[in-house]
């Protein structure tokens, strides 16, 4: 399975508020793409637009070059930000119903429900009503609802919110597996460390506009060089404060995270550190995703 989900010039206004302002980016298959942005940036509106759940003032969503319509959406999977299931309906019955709405036969929907409930460790709750499940298990059921019909595109709005580490691992594993099998996976999150672990690419938006998009590795390597330097006996990294072309990003337990100007040689920094005392750590470091995020939104 290969393809490309293209979002082109998406614009959505609510009165005087512009939620999406000509937003364009694309999501390739075969990788997990993180969709980031501060609160109110337009992430949820973008995801809803893919499913026609919000009326666009302008713009278009394409899948493999063709405009996305009802037939295409039936082959997509969606996990909305505010979870939505019938509270009084039994888990398996509800999942089979949703699978059938996505075009599955009754037998296939039943088999896929059993497989996915077992895969996510909630098979014994198949006959429970949804509102009798814990938050984490409801989240798992909601994910199964998005996965059941073997979607070509998986759009997940905050799928990791409120999950314990085991839940995050389980759902994260499923997303990576889906991407490897050729699915196009886009998910939003505020937990940047988890996004960094899970995603190969990220797209960051703000005020309804694209800020940055690219592979996590490329973004981490881009920008100014970073060093972590630890000098024995100097817990405040006071040695670095007077060094030209060096900005202290953070000092944590004696380890100074430094951002170097392009003109500064790392050897000169090492010499300055050695002059201040015994150097116990001197490491080049990639940009963290949280730093990419903060710098992109400056």
């Amino acid at each position, binding site marked *: 399975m290969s393809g490309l989900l293209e979002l082109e010039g998406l614009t959505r206004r609510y009165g005087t508020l512009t939620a999406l302002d000509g937003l364009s980016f694309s999501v390739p298959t075969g990788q997990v793409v993180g969709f980031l942005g501060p609160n109110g940036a337009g992430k949820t509106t973008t995801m*809803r637009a893919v*499913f*026609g*759940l*919000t009326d666009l003032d302008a713009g278009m969503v394409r899948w493999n070059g063709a405009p996305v319509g*009802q*037939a295409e*959406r*039936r082959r*997509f999977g*969606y996990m*909305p930000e*505010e*979870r*939505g*299931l*019938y*509270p009084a*309906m039994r888990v398996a019955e509800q999942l089979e*119903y*949703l699978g*059938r*709405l*996505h*075009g*599955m*036969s*009754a*037998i296939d929907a039943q088999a896929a429900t059993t497989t996915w409930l077992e895969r996510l460790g909630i098979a014994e709750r198949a006959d429970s009503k949804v509102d009798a499940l814990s938050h984490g298990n409801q989240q798992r059921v*909601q994910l199964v*609802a998005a996965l059941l019909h073997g979607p070509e595109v998986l759009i997940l709005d905050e799928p990791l919110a409120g999950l314990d580490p085991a839940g995050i691992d389980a759902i994260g594993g499923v997303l990576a597996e889906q991407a490897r099998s050729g699915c196009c996976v886009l998910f939003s999150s505020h937990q940047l460390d988890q996004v960094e672990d899970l995603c190969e690419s990220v797209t960051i938006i703000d005020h309804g506009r694209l800020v940055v998009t690219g592979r996590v590795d490329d973004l981490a390597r881009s920008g100014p060089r970073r060093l972590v330097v630890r000098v024995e006996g100097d817990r405040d990294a006071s040695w670095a404060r007077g060094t030209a072309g060096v900005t202290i990003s953070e000092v944590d337990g004696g380890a100074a995270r430094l951002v170097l100007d392009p003109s500064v040689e790392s050897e000169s920094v090492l010499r300055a550190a050695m002059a201040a005392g015994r150097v116990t750590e001197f490491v080049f470091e990639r940009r963290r995703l949280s730093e990419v995020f903060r710098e992109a939104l400056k």
Partner: protein
Amino acid sequence: MRGGLIAAVLAVVVIVRVWGRRRRRTTGQRQTHGGLGPFTSDVGLVAAREMRERFRGKIFRVGTLLILAVVAAAIVIPTLDNGKPEPQRVGLVGALSAPLRAAVVSSAKSVGTTVHFVSVADEEAAHADLRSGRVDLAIVEGRELVVNKPIGSTDISTTAQFVDAVSKNLGIVEAVEAAHLTAAQSSELAGARALPVHSLQPGAVKGATHTTSLIGLVLIFVMLSQYNTWILIGVMEEKSSRVIEVLLAAVRPIQLLTGKVLGIGLVAFVQASAIVVFALVLAKSVGSDLLHGTAPVVLASTLVWLVLGYAFYCWVYAAAGSLAERQDQVQSLAFPLSLPIIFGYIMALTAAGSASPSSFFKVLAYLPPTAPFAMPVLVGLGKVTWWEFLASALISIVCTVGVARLATGIYRRAILRTGGRVKLRDVLTRAAG
């Protein structure tokens, strides 16, 4: 009666089970959308879910049993009263001659009852028996009639009619005796029959048709109120639980809404049909006169207008449900919608008992919001021709199409808006645009 009740309930259960099994078997074997387009298939899936959930619900089961019990009572109680009339107990103080005794028995027969004579020692004892209700009438020495309470001219109870007949007949017997007529002349007088009286205006509504009209009216009122409220709450719950986003990611709003109203409507129709079949079977088995005259036509018309009334109101209630997000908002939205239903119901109840409905009521029979109540009543009264019935039905269908278009526009605009009750003006502006 018990046999009829069990048969009707069993019939409904069997139909629902067989339908469910056949559906499971067929859907399990064929690929989705096998012979149907995706639109109808999705509508069918949504409708089937609605039916499954409603049939399972306690409200449906208990409600159906309650309605059946009420219908059974309405049919059976009158027949109990008609089949075994209470004998009139007559206390005799002193002797009563054979001709007078025969006149009393004849009086009882003329009002459809029998008589039971009780000998009483004296007048005081007779008064005591009257006060305690042990006798209905006391005849003192064949010349004086005594009752406990005065009988008004409008009293149509069996006892009142009996006392009136006894009073007149004993007077005639006395007059005949006083006139010293021959036996042949006395016999001739005794065989006298009142001449029939023909009126220019139609008489009051016959009992059976009136009862059927009332049962039909109550059925339409209960079912329209109940099932439309289900639609309103069902739509609101899908919105408030946010499952609507998951559903609309797969199907169009029009499919979801059509499936919902169709599914709940079929449940309503199955329930109403079961009640009508139950009523007919029970009426036949207990010998009720419910099936006589125009009553079956009234029942059929009730079912037709139940369908048309539901079709008209269901879209309105669905649109209202899409504006709400909480239970308290539902209450305030449902109240104004229920006003035309209550108005039509009250007007129809009033008109059902009258021989000649007003022109205003006849107009109501052509307005889609009130026609489901007014038209079956006019049918019961015999005040409507087939083409007038058809015209009203066509008006209702045309208006239903218009209302459905407007309602689906409102639904589509409002169902995905969260964060408080949506203002109708906002969605109407957008729906029109």
